[in-house]
Each structure stands twice: as structure tokens, then as C-alpha cells.
């Protein structure tokens, strides 16, 4: 990967990485560090990573960094996410979904975000996370069920 390709990756994927890391870590500052670390690693390994695989490589690094960050802090409080950095379309629904996401473990949360945010297939998620496609499917379905049950519970119905 050449310098111009690396810079194109920054322009194209930095925002998506930041959103993913922000949801995974629960902290905007941690997400910022994760994104910086991702691109540092990409820069160091730019000779080994072809341009077409740069996105998957970045999300793989972001996934690992976010999991490490989460495990280091052991707990994520989504109330710490600064509300002023984004304006959700429906604030009430957004809060409920954030709380629902907080019910998941770090791995399930990452799987759901990779699926819903980036639209990766089971196999692609498996390559990023190091899981098999079958494992991804099972973990994702388990996470979906938790999210659905949270949303349909009487106290969380909008």
C-alpha cells in the first residue's frame, strides 16, 4: 500500500472506525485512541496490507483494541458517551437501543455492530474476529434475542 492509498483509507474509514469503537468501548476518548492505534498499525504494516483489504484489517485491529480496552476497564458505562458529539434522529429510541446494547458482552456487541453498521457477512465477521462463520451466526442470534427481549419488555416499550 502506497502513501496515497493509506491517506485515502484515513478519509474513507476513520469515521466508521470511530463509530464502531465508540459503541464498543463506550467512551469517545477511548474510541479516539483506538482509531489512532488502528491507523498506526496500518501505517507500520502498509507494505504487507493491500489496499483492498485495508478496511477489514482496520476493523480487525479496532475489534481487538476495543475488546482489550473493554476487558481492561471491565465495565462500560454508556452514560459516559458525550451526547453532544452526535444528534440521534430519535433520542428516546437511541437511548433504549444503547441500553439494550449494554446488555451484551463485548464480543456480541462487536458482532452486532459489524453486522448492522458495516453489513459484513458471517464469514467476513469471522475473519475479522477470528471466529468461524457458524460461531458468528450463533453468537449473533443469541445477541439478537437478548436485544429483542429487552425491547419488548414491558418497561422498555416505547
Amino acid at each position, binding site marked *: 500500500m502506497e502513501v496515497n492509498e493509506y*491517506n485515502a483509507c484515513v478519509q474513507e474509514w476513520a469515521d466508521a472506525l*470511530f463509530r464502531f469503537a465508540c459503541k464498543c468501548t463506550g467512551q469517545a476518548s477511548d474510541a479516539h485512541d483506538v*482509531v489512532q492505534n488502528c491507523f498506526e498499525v496500518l501505517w507500520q504494516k502498509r507494505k504487507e496490507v493491500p489496499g483492498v483489504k485495508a478496511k477489514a484489517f482496520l476493523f480487525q485491529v479496532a475489534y481487538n483494541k476495543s475488546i482489550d480496552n473493554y476487558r481492561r476497564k471491565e465495565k462500560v458505562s454508556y452514560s459516559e458517551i458525550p451526547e453532544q*458529539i452526535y444528534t440521534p434522529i430519535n433520542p428516546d429510541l437511541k437511548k433504549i*437501543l444503547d441500553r439494550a446494547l449494554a446488555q451484551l458482552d463485548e464480543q456480541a456487541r462487536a458482532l452486532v455492530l459489524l453486522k*448492522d453498521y458495516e453489513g459484513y457477512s458471517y464469514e467476513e465477521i469471522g475473519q475479522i474476529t477470528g471466529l468461524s462463520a457458524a460461531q458468528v*451466526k450463533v453468537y449473533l442470534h443469541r445477541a439478537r434475542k437478548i436485544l*429483542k427481549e429487552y425491547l419488548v419488555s414491558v418497561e422498555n416499550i416505547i
Partner: protein
Amino acid sequence: MVTQENYEEYIMMYADGELTPAEEAALLAFIATRPELENELAAYNMARFTPDTTMVFADKKALIKPEPAKQIISFPAWRKYSIAAGIAALIFISFFKYLLPGKKQDAITSVKIEQPHIAVPSNVRTPVQKTNAEQPIAIVVKKKSAAVKRTSAKMPATSNIAKLENKQNSSQKDNDRIDVARDWKETINTLQIADAKKLESKPFAAVARVVATIPEIPLADEEVTVKKSFLDNLPIDDLKKKEMNNIVTAIADNLDKSSISVKIEKRKLIVSF
């Protein structure tokens, strides 16, 4: 197939966007028969997350790496001019070597003229033409014979004769040398006399026999080029060239006449049409 036992897996795969269109249609058809599952499908759909595009990484500039400046290789001024001069020389040489039509005329391999002493006073009409590249050709001045008629009826070159006549009628005598040279080239290229021996046996037959091996020559050549390439390049001496030119001029000047007469030494041939 969607059943009561596996519908939940289908719903979750539907939420993941992993169903094929057929599977999706089957699932929706199954749920349509069980209204109680519609809320469940709606809940799974609601549990999907969409990225908030207003959430951006604001410090991209810190991640951007400086790109190396592009190297511009410049030639010295003299090298530019030398390259330009070389290209111009190539074009010049190519023009003279391949583009000048005079080169094509040099392809005439041999022209032999018999009966060199021919004086053509006037009233000469062009003979019948034939398009044959290698054909004994004779210019014959005689009465319009049946053989000539037959040939002209068969040959599509008759229209060429008409063109030639029209062309000659409109030309000026002073400029005939160039025009006639071109027409003479066309004529030689197509001339044919059906029965040369028969004509020679007659007392007033005057024949200038030309045996030429002539390839296809484009008619649109420049006049000056035709003059040089054909007449001047013929492998004959100047006297014969002059005689040939006299024949050509006479034929060209009298194409519209009803009779021609040719005097060869002491003999005279009169042909009326």
C-alpha cells in the same frame, strides 16, 4: 421451508440480512398466516442498529501522512529541439518516400513502341479501351470496324471513353500536354484493338504498337506528377517521346471529329465515322 420450529432462526437471519429473496418471501408468507409473529418480527427489526453518520472522527489530519512530491523529469532545451527536429525529419522523409503519387507511376515496367515514324496531322479519334494490365496495345487509325464495335459493346470502358472525350473537349490546347499525358496513360491502360494483323495488312493502316505492362494506376493523380512519371520516365529516347506525344495530342484534339487521317511517311490513312 419455514416451520413453527425454525421460524425464529429465519427471523434472525432476516434481521441479519442473510436470507435469499426466496427464503425471505417464504418467511413473510409464513408470518402472514400467524399474526402473533408479526410483533416478534417487528421487535427483531427494531433491534437492528444503524450508524449515526453525524458521529465523525474529527482528527483525521493527524492521521494523514505527507505524500512524496512527484518527480518531474525535464529535458534540456537542446534535447527538446533535437527530438522535434528528428520527428520533423521522419515526417519529411515519409512524405517523399511513401506519399508522393509519382512513386506509384514508376511501377511501369516496360513500354515498347513500334512504328516510330508517325506523323499525325489531325482528326484522330481514340480507339476502344480495355482494362487489361498486360495486353498488346495498338493505336489504330482506320475506319470504325466491326471488331472495334464488338469490343466497345462488350467492354464497360466505353463510358471511360465518353468521359475522356468530354474531358478533352473542355481542355485548352496550350495545356493539353499535361492533360493528354494523363489521358494517354488511361488510354494505354485500356486500349485494345481486336484484329491488329488485319489492320496492318491494309495499305493505309498506321499503327503505333505499344506493349505495356501497366499496373492499376489511380486516376486522381496530380497532373504534373503524371507528366513526369509517365512520359518522362519512359525508357525511350526523346525523339520517340516526341512522336508519342504528337499522337496523344492529335487524338486528344480530334476526339470530337467524325473522321481522322494519319500520315505515316508517304502513306496516308483517312478514317471517317
